[in-house]
C-alpha cells in the first residue's frame, strides 16, 4: 500500500497503490484521516488499487464519514471493474461520487 497526494484545481487528489486489506487498511487509514480532516473534499484515484477486502471497504466508508462530518465529499476514480462490482453488490458504492477520470471528479466536486 502506497499513498501519494497532489493538488488539482485546488482539490486534493489521493493516489492509492496496491492492496487494501486487513493488514494494510489500518496504516492507510492512519495516513488518510489527517488528509481528509485537513481538506474535507477529496478525490481518490483508485486506478492502481488491485484488491480491496472487507476491511478496505470499511476504511473507505470511514473516510467518507469523516469527510461528510466536515461537509466534504469523496469522489472515486479509476475503480477496477472488480472493485466497482464488489462495492455495488455490498452497497458501499452508494455513498461515493464515482467519476470516469480525475478531471471529471474535480469538476463535479467543484460544481456541488
Amino acid at each position, binding site marked *: 500500500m502506497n499513498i501519494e497526494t497532489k493538488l488539482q484545481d485546488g482539490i486534493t487528489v489521493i493516489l492509492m497503490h496496491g492492496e487494501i*486489506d*486487513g*493488514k494494510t487498511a489500518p496504516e492507510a487509514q492512519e495516513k488518510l484521516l489527517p488528509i481528509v480532516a485537513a481538506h474535507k473534499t477529496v478525490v481518490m484515484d483508485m486506478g492502481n488499487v488491485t484488491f480491496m*477486502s*472487507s*476491511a478496505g*471497504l*470499511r476504511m473507505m*466508508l470511514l473516510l467518507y464519514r469523516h469527510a461528510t462530518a466536515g461537509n466534504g465529499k469523496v469522489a472515486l476514480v479509476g475503480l477496477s471493474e472488480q472493485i466497482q*462490482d*464488489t462495492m*455495488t*453488490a*455490498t*452497497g*458501499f458504492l452508494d*455513498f461515493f461520487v464515482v467519476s470516469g477520470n480525475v478531471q471529471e471528479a474535480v469538476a463535479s466536486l467543484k460544481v456541488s
Partner: protein
Amino acid sequence: MDSRIDFYPTHEHSGYKLRPGKPYPFGASLVPGGINFSIFSRHATSCTLVLFEKHASKPLVEIPFPHSFRIGNVYSMVVFDLDCENIEYGYRMDGPNDPANGHRFDNSKILLDPYAKAIGGRDIWGKTPDWNEVFQYRGRLVFEDFDWEDDHALETPIEDLVIYEAHVRSFTRHPSSKVKFPGTYAALVEKIPYLKQLGINCIELMPVYEFDEFENSRPNPSTGEMLYNYWGYSTVGFFAPKSGYAATGKFGMQVDELKNMVKHLHKNGIEVMLDVVFNHTAEGNEKGPTISFRGVDNSTYYMLTPEGYYFNFSGCGNTLNCNNPIVRNMVLDCLRYWASEYHIDGFRFDLAAILGRDPRGAPLPNPPLLETLAFDPVLGKCKLIAEAWDAGGLNMLGSFPAYGRWAEWNGKFRDHVRKFLRGDKGMVGKMGQRVQGSPDLYDRNGRGPTASINFVTCHDGFTLYDLFSYNGKHNEVNCENNRDGSNDNFSWNCGHEGDSESSEVRWLRHKLVKNAAVLLIISQGVPMMLMGDEIGRTQKGNNNTYCHDSDLNWMDWSLVEKNTDLLRFFRNMIAFRRAHPVLRSPTHFQNRDYVGSGVADITWHGVQKWNADWSNESRILAFMLDGRHAKGGAAKDNTIYVAVNSYWESLSFSLPDPPSGKKWHLFANTGVEYPGDICIPGMEIPLQNQNDFLVGPRSAIILLAR
C-alpha cells in the same frame, strides 16, 4: 478506554496472547484487541479452539481452553492480535462416545461453531469441495457495522401483504435474466423493478442460511447431470448467510451483500421474509457427517430415542430438540440476530409442528419455544408464519398455538381452490370458508383472517401452470423412481398431459391460471404466490424439484414476453387488491349488516341473486363484499361482486343491485381473451346490462360498483 486492564492478555499459548473470555454472547465476537470465543457444551470434558488461516488445510494453532476459562458449561476465551479477516475457527470437544446415552463426542473432528456468523468452505456455488479436507465448514468472523442509514423493518400490516415466494438462485440464474451475476443477492437487486411492477410487497426467500449444495449430491445415472441439495432445506449454520448466493462470496462479503439486498428491497417497499429450517440440521442420522451439533453436545441439540438414535419427525434423519432450553435460546438468539442485524421482516418456519414437540417428540399443549418467540421484544413486530405440520404426522392446521402472533400456511386453501377450479363437486361450501379467510379454522381465540396465509402453489408441488398441465407428477429425473413428491396434487391437465400445441388447451390453461389468481388475490387473508407463476413457469410436471440446478427451477425470463397476458393479469389483480381495503379485512366478516348500509358485509349469491347454491352438485361461487363495511366500517370502499363458474358450460348470473346511485363496472372476466380479460384498476368498464351477466365456462368475473 484502552486503559482498562481487561483489554490486555493474561495468558499465553504457543505465542498467542490470551485471557479468560466472557461467556456471553455465544459465538466469536470482536472485542478491543482481540476476539472473544465462547461455546456451550454440557457434556464435554474439555474443549480446544482450533484456528486456521483462511482456506488453509492445516491449523495455525490449537489452543486448549485452560480449566479456569470455563464457567459452568461455557468455554470462553479472548485471543489477541488476530487478523480477523484471515482467520477461520473451529473447536475440538472431548467427551464420552456413548451413543446409548446420547453422547457422540469425537475429538478427531473439528467442529463448526453453532453460532458462526459466516462460514467458509462453500464460498462459490457449485465448486466441488475437496472431501479430504479435515475442516469442511469453517467459522469466520464478521464485521457487524453495516451502514443501514435510516432503514427499518417495514412493518406493513400483514393483511396488506402480497407475498412472493422465491429462491435466490432460481430467480436470476437463467441466462435470460440478463443480470451481471446470475443467481445472487446482487442480481435480485437488479430485478427489483420487476417485482415492483408486479406489485408484490413481500419476498419470501427459500433458505438462505448456509447449507451445502453438495450434501447427498450425486449424478443422474442416465444423464450424468448432477443432482444437488439445491433448495437448501438442510441447515449447516443458522447464523450465517449462504455464501454461494453472493457475487462477493469469494471475497467473504456475503453478509454485506445480503444486507444491501434487504436495504434496497426496503427502499422499494418490499419486505423480506426468510424461510427458516429449525426442524433438523444437515448432520442427518447416526450415519451422517459430524459437522457441529453432534460433536458439540449431541444429547442437548437432538431429539433422541431412549436407545440413543435420532427421532426423524423431519423426514431428514434427525430432529432439532427445539424445546430444550439451550436449543430454544439458540433459536431465539438466531432470530433476534436476523431481525436486528439483517432487518428481516418476518419468518416462515419449515415443518413448524416440530417446534411444538417435547424432547421425546410428544406434542406440547403450550410449547415454550412458540410462546417465547411470540412474546419476544426484539421479534415484536416480525411476522411469524408456521408450516403447521411435520413429516411425523402431526398436523396442527387451525390449531397451531398462536399467542395472537402466529399465522399459518393454509394447506386447506390450497387443496380446496385446486379441487374447486378443476370442477370437483362438493367444494362450494368449503370455498365459502376459504374466501372469507377460513373462519372455520381461525375464528377461534381471536385469530382472524390474517392467520391464514393463502396459497394455491408453493415450492413444494406443481407450479400453477403445471397444475393445469399435468394430471400426475413426473419426477423421474429426481432418480427416486417417481416415488418422491406428493401424490395429492388435485391437478388437471386440461385434456393433454404436458405441453400442447393446441390453442384450445392453451386457452383453457391460461383461463384456469387466471381463475386461480382471482381466488388467491380476492380472498381475505394473506395471499402468497410462487415465483414465476405470473408468467406461467413450468417444471415440466416435476412436483419436487429440490435437487435440480437447471431450468426445472430457474425462472425463464423469456416467458415475460410469451405469457404477457398472465403477467398483466397478475399485475392488475394485485393492484386491485392493494387499491381496495374491502379485500383486506383484519377481522372476520360477520355475515350481517353492522354499519347500517342495508346489506351484510358479505352476501352470497348464485345464478340467481341472493340465492347461493351450496348443494353438492354446485360448481359456482358468487358473493358481494359491501364497501361500506371495509376494515370493519372504518374505511370507505367500493362494493365488489365476484362470480366464479367452475362448471364446464356458460351460466347466466343475475346480479344483486349495487348500492343506490352506483352502477356495476367490469374489472375482470377470465372468459374473455387478452386484453379484454382485465382492466387497469380505476378504468373498469360500465356494464350495459346491470341485471344479468353471462359467465363463460370455467370463468370468473369481478365487478365493481361505482
